């Protein structure tokens, strides 16, 4: 076990998978010589050379599009989009191609590709560097969406994503890159995609979160008798774990960083309203950002759901 932060954990996963399987490639803007603007790909170019670690032009559509071609041709590309706010140039490639190649070719071709991208607020960045738009991608059949919440889950989930036979969007909470350090196994390991992690056990309430909000959620949950579920995967997501917990506790609070309307929390709440309503003792409550254009750095702390709001919502849910 090594005590590492998320950047290091991700780097370990990439390095180990590249060691293990020569078909794993890394490509993107500044991923080579510079080691990535967050240093997630640091040292890979030196270790694996320019044919496996490709600095690309500034070309999100080209990066993802070319990665699709490489994936169809037998490679396992891990493409980096420098910030999630710049993924939209590749949206068509993801929605119309990566996610559909297997279906369209009836399995003759497939698209085992990973798109890594940092997301989320809290790093006082300039505009478009801080949004959380995971729900957009979870609505695309054929695309998997995975979001780690700490170094250990980051390494295990990225390893799974690379080995997954289908395209995976892998969202890295930028605020947590260097914030949390934890023990992470030295060797390769996987965490199954589509399965949640019970981050804490309790009886009176279920709190569901993922990625960037998990750490705040854990803090907010202190002192409450609550299950805290770290979803880990949004598509597919672990409905069974969530249902089992809510049926047990009768109360659900869902915490997301994205604006409320049509966020991923809505999907969870909808499933609960459909399948667990008889067990619900309180309204299903969502903690989310406001439905406004995200402000710049000086207001981001007001915009992001905070520990205070989460606690208040928990207390509210417990009133029922």
């Amino acid at each position: 076990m090594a005590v590492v932060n998320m950047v290091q954990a991700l780097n370990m996963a990439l390095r180990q998978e590249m060691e293990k399987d020569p078909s794993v490639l890394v490509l993107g803007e500044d991923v080579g010589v510079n080691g990535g603007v967050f240093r997630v790909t640091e040292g890979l170019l030196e270790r694996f050379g320019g044919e496996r670690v490709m600095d690309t032009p500034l070309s999100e559509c080209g990066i993802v599009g070319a990665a699709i071609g490489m994936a169809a041709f037998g490679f396992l590309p891990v493409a980096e989009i420098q910030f999630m706010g710049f993924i939209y140039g590749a949206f068509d490639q993801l929605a119309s191609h990566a996610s559909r190649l297997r279906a369209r070719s009836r399995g003759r071709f497939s698209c085992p590709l990973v798109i890594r991208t940092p997301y989320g607020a809290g790093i006082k960045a300039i505009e478009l560097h801080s949004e959380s738009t995971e729900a957009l991608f979870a609505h695309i059949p054929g695309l998997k969406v995975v979001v780690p919440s700490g170094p250990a889950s980051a390494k295990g989930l990225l390893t799974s994503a690379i080995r997954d036979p289908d395209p995976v969007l892998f969202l890295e909470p930028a605020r947590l890159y260097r914030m949390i350090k934890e023990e992470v196994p030295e060797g390769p390991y996987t965490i199954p995609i589509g399965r949640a992690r019970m981050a804490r056990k309790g009886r009176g309430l279920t709190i569901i979160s993922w990625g960037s909000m998990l750490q705040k959620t854990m803090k907010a949950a202190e002192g409450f008798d609550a299950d805290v579920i770290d979803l880990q995967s949004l598509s597919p997501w672990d409905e069974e774990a969530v249902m089992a917990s809510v049926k047990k506790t009768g109360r659900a609070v869902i915490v997301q960083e994205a604006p409320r309307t049509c966020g991923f929390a809505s999907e969870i709440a909808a499933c609960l309203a459909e399948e667990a309503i008889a067990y619900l003792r309180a309204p299903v409550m969502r903690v989310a950002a406001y439905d406004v254009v995200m402000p710049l750095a000086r207001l981001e702390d007001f915009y992001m759901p905070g520990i205070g709001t989460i606690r208040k919502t928990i207390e509210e849910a417990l009133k029922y």
Partner: protein
Amino acid sequence: MAEKTIATFEVRRLEILDEEGNADKALMPSLTGDDIRGIYEKMLLSRAFDERALRLQREGRLGTYASIRGQEAAQAASAFAAEKSDWIFPSFRETGVQITVGYPIFMLFQYWSGDERGMKCPDDLSVFPICISVSTHLPHAVGAAIAMKLKKQKKAAIVYFGDGATSKGDFHEAFNMAGVFKAPVVFICQNNQWAISVPLSRQTAARTLAQKALAYGFPGIQVDGNDVFAVYRAASEALHKARDGEGPSFIECQTYRISDHTTADDSSRYRPAREVEYWRAKDPIKRLKTYMEKEGLLTEDYQRQLEEKNESALDEAFRKMEEIGPPPPSEMFARTFKEPTRREDIEMRSFVDGGG
């Protein structure tokens, strides 16, 4: 201190076979009589398929279909230049390419009747599924080509698209990446002068499409797209260069879409019959046929036999498609992911319990 010229460029156009069926011997590519017959046969079969598909569509037995009439030379001759090991990335108007490389015809019928099983490319071919979203498949060809290069294989990717496709960002990003990575890819634009109702002059202010390659640091050439020999020669040279590690090329085939955009379109709304007539006279099949007759490569017998063979091949292919029948609804639940998710399982069960 000066105002000086720092780079000069020229764009060339290749023509070998004229409208009277005369070939420029000096430029003629090395093709045997059998090769020429081979191309001719594919062109003829492509046209026969096209006519059949249009008829079947009118009869309500096929879905919306995009005719290739007039573009047979650009398609068959370029595809003929490809090796079996090259990978082909078609748009929705490449029936002639698919037919030339031997894509099963009953599967083309399946596809155009709305059955995705037609897009499952047989294992011995490397033809990507048809791309409907204009120009978005170009990056895939570049990625595949980079992959070939990484594997040090002597292969190339060939990607087909229209004049309208040159306006899209995907075109640009793909061309640019191909240039930077010196990817073994051949970009073939079938400039058929129209993107539905939008004429080339509304698509670009550039004099030629071929010159667009200059922006990416690799060669572009214009060829008479109704001239099998020019197309074959340009494609073959570009493919060899690609396989030899000399990077990408761009070929603009100047041709024309004789039919409507698709069976859902009515081109008389936006273009003059005169223009269509002008291009009909440049028919690529007629032109090659005249050449072959002059060269003694084609007899009436051969022609008749071909036509009969094509008709019965089409009959048989369509019958096969009908025999196979429509896709079972369960097809819908296969292949979104390699392993169905729990949600898909639930939905499939609920479907079996009576969905729709």
